[in-house]
């Protein structure tokens, strides 16, 4: 995989777009891999008891999925220096069915001296943002 060259970058350019479908099995897999067994991510009864509409995705699941477009663009996931988000809205995951998360990554800033680029992510479900201030700082080759 080739790495983007700083000279070829234009602020505001699209980096990548991706659609992620999320089902209950994906949340169970994430729970196991992350060891985050909070029942709001797999138990509808528990989720409703604490005031949620039903099972919601781990915020960290969505955060982890959303950054893949930047890893692939950078050509090396080890080039990601910083990544931060705010969790602005939960992602309900129905059963049966799935949630559809849209990721749109745009080049927001380039620091030629530091050799870094900032990529901003818009992450939305049904047109409503589920992550806020989702920013990724990437070291460029």
């Amino acid at each position, binding site marked *: 995989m080739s790495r983007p060259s700083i000279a070829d970058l234009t602020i505001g350019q699209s980096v990548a777009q991706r659609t992620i479908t999320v089902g209950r099995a994906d949340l169970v897999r994430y729970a196991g891999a992350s060891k985050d067994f909070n029942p709001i991510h797999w138990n509808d009864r528990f989720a409703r008891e604490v005031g949620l509409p039903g099972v919601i995705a781990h915020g960290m699941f969505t955060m982890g999925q959303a*950054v893949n477009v930047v890893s692939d663009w950078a050509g090396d996931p080890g080039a990601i220096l910083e990544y931060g988000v705010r969790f602005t809205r939960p992602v309900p995951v129905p059963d049966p069915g799935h949630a559809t998360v849209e990721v749109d990554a745009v080049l927001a800033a380039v620091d030629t001296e530091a050799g870094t680029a900032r990529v901003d992510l818009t992450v939305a479900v049904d047109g409503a943002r589920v992550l806020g201030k989702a920013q990724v700082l990437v070291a460029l080759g």
Partner: protein
Amino acid sequence: MGVNLSYAGRAYPPTQPYAVGREHLHDFALAVGAHHPAHHDADAARALGHPDVIASPTFAVVIAQRAEAQLISDPEAGIDFSRVVHAEERFTHHRPIHAGDELVTVLHVDSITERSGLAMVTTRCEITADDGKVATVVSTLAVRGEDA
């Protein structure tokens, strides 16, 4: 009982070392849909200059949440987990985490603020290895009060 504001500023002793294994990095990366070969194939990771397979960008949350449990599971801290919502998360990678790392974490409670029944708890995990700083993970939890 609300969140114990006096915990702000607290730092915990270093955790026991966390041994990072290839299979766990592979499983975690698959669970977040990270299919880049650097997470799954040691030769591909080495071709990019890494010593072994590397962690996907949010893997450090696994290590951080284990350290944060020192605060969250402490009854005196007053954090009712059924009232907690994850508000913010930020990773700073000083270098990628790779298979074979033995990582030690120091948990800091950077701030606890309370306003109109909502407590915001910000923690910072400083993750280090023998060769120095590896990652900093800052996490903010929002804890609803009992009448909120």
